[in-house]
């Protein structure tokens, strides 16, 4: 492993002060994720995996420890600088898709570009958004509103939105949590294809089946990493899809 680290955590802790009680959600996590990795973070609810994701996603700051994202230390950045980091270096995919309602797929994908410090022209916005939709195979539905798309398609729009600013890291929080098995496979196939092209992906999931499409499995319990190993019997989602029973093929 000689690729550059995208995520480097050293002794990261997060303590929430709720009234009198201090809750230690993350207790000293050190972790390195290198370029081109596809890691799954697993763990029961309350294991601290969501808090860890928020820290890695620069939505929250650690109480203690240090964090380098793509070589730059982000623990000391201001709120506005963190916004810029999220905009330029991170792509988010959520369980609930979180698309803007009554807004076309194209305009949803444009969203991160609008907050970009570079300021793109209208044509550039459209071109890059269409290219991102192309990557997830939805260019034909650019004008559709979320309510006109299936759950899987909505999640693909969300992935396109995460990709549009060409981030260094794609963060996915239970991306298949709201989807059926077959659609989950489609989403995992997209993630695997992106990963093949070099995208670094960190995904939170509590489904062991889904974790098997990743390359690395990190298991948390009580705010600590208790297991961190490569996925032994890795599955290829595209191949699975080809064999899977397709309800649309049924007579």
């Amino acid at each position, binding site marked *: 492993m000689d690729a550059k680290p995208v995520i480097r955590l050293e002794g990261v802790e997060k303590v929430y002060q709720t009234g009198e009680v201090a809750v230690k959600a993350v207790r000293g996590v050190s972790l390195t994720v290198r370029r081109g990795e596809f890691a799954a973070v697993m763990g029961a609810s309350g294991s601290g995996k969501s808090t860890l994701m*928020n820290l890695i996603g620069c939505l929250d700051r650690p109480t203690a420890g240090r964090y380098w994202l793509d070589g730059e230390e982000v623990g000391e950045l201001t*709120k*506005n600088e963190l*916004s810029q980091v999220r*905009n330029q270096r991170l792509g988010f995919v959520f369980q609930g898709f*979180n698309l803007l309602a009554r807004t076309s797929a194209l305009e949803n994908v444009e969203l991160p570009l*609008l*907050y970009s*410090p570079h300021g793109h022209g209208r044509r550039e916005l459209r071109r890059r958004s269409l290219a991102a939709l192309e990557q997830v195979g939805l260019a034909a539905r650019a004008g559709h509103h979320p309510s006109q798309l299936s759950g899987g398609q909505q999640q693909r729009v969300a992935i396109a939105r995460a990709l549009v600013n060409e981030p260094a890291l794609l963060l996915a929080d239970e991306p298949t949590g709201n989807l059926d098995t077959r659609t989950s496979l489609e989403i995992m196939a997209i993630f695997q294809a992106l990963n093949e092209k070099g995208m670094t992906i960190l995904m939170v999931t509590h489904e062991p089946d889904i974790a098997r499409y990743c390359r690395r499995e990190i298991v948390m319990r009580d705010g600590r990493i208790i297991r961190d190993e490569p996925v032994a019997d890795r599955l290829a989602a595209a191949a699975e899809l080809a064999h899977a029973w397709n309800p649309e093929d049924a007579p």
Partner: protein
Amino acid sequence: MKFSATWMIALRALRRNPMRTGLTMLGIIIGVAAVIGMVAIGTGAKEQVASSIAQIGQNTVMVMSGAPSRGGVRGGWGSLPTLTRQDYEAIRNEIPGVIRATPDVRKNTQVAAGNQNVNTTVNGAGEDYADIRAWDFVEGGNFSATDVRTAAKVAILGNTVATNLFGDASPIGQIVRIQNAPYTVIGLLKPKGMNMMGSDQDDLALVPWSSALVRLTGTDSFRSMTVQAESAEQVDRVMEDIAALLRQRHRLREGAEDDFQVRSQQEIMEMATSTARTMTLLLGAIAGVSLLVGGIGIMNIMLVSVTERTREIGVRLAVGARGIDILLQFLVEAVVLSVGGGLVGIGLGIGIAQAVSAKLGWNTLVSPESVTLAFAFSAAIGIFFGFYPARKAAGLDPIEALRYE
């Protein structure tokens, strides 16, 4: 992030909810339209008061009989017969700078011709009456000084009276009977139309004041006189001279109250227009309240919208919006609502003013000041009432906002 992007984001957000956008604007639309319309009606009324008083004549002074007050009881002008024909002649002949003067004696009575008769106001006037009021003749002409001196039985008719008595035929040379005395019609006045109170200014007949005193009222006094000074600069001095002359003629002691009033047209104008101005202010203030309510409507909707769109705000923060971006978005949304509503409201207000003019015949005037003020006020309302919700939105924690159900 460029400011144009903020505009795009805000406009897209408003477009996503056209119904809510329209209804929120409606409050401001109604408020601004009410302000513009009400102020236009008030200003129009003021203008009309001013123009109707201007018809009394330029640089004129009104001399009215009766004291302004007597033992605390206000009699109102014309309530005491203290102005005599000798007073009139003294004012006319002895005071320098007086170029024209006419007394005013009135009687509501019947005027008949042939088998037609009408009720009208017969004005006893001097030969200067038409000149002071700058009133032209359609046909015929004015009284001569001799007519006035000899109490001649001649009459000048207003257009309404002439039409009612003679139809389209010329009244000149015809005989009209006023209280059984025959008068020869020597002039027909140009029509003036309604005044602001809606009464017909052409519904009158003029006879020499001397005839009126002898044959109609049987008195020797006038209710008022109109005196015209040579120039605006002389008005004040003429007023003082008239007061001094009348006090001397009425033998009023030092310290005794005047038994007459002298008012310049300017003063009468100011009194009358200040009433109209108060009315305009009152109407404007009431309309302003509805504009304020419209502004509170915007704040209400924006606050609801911040709660309803918490997740949207969370997503925006997650993909890299800064607090200031969210603040500006919500502020721009509020300002677009209020300014958009303001523009539509200005159009609607002008429409209302024109409709009122056309349907009710009221004089209205949309002043540029009221348009500018209403527009600036609506923009200020957007910023003022939009700021609190916008700050609330900008202060949201991205993690909390994303988790919000």
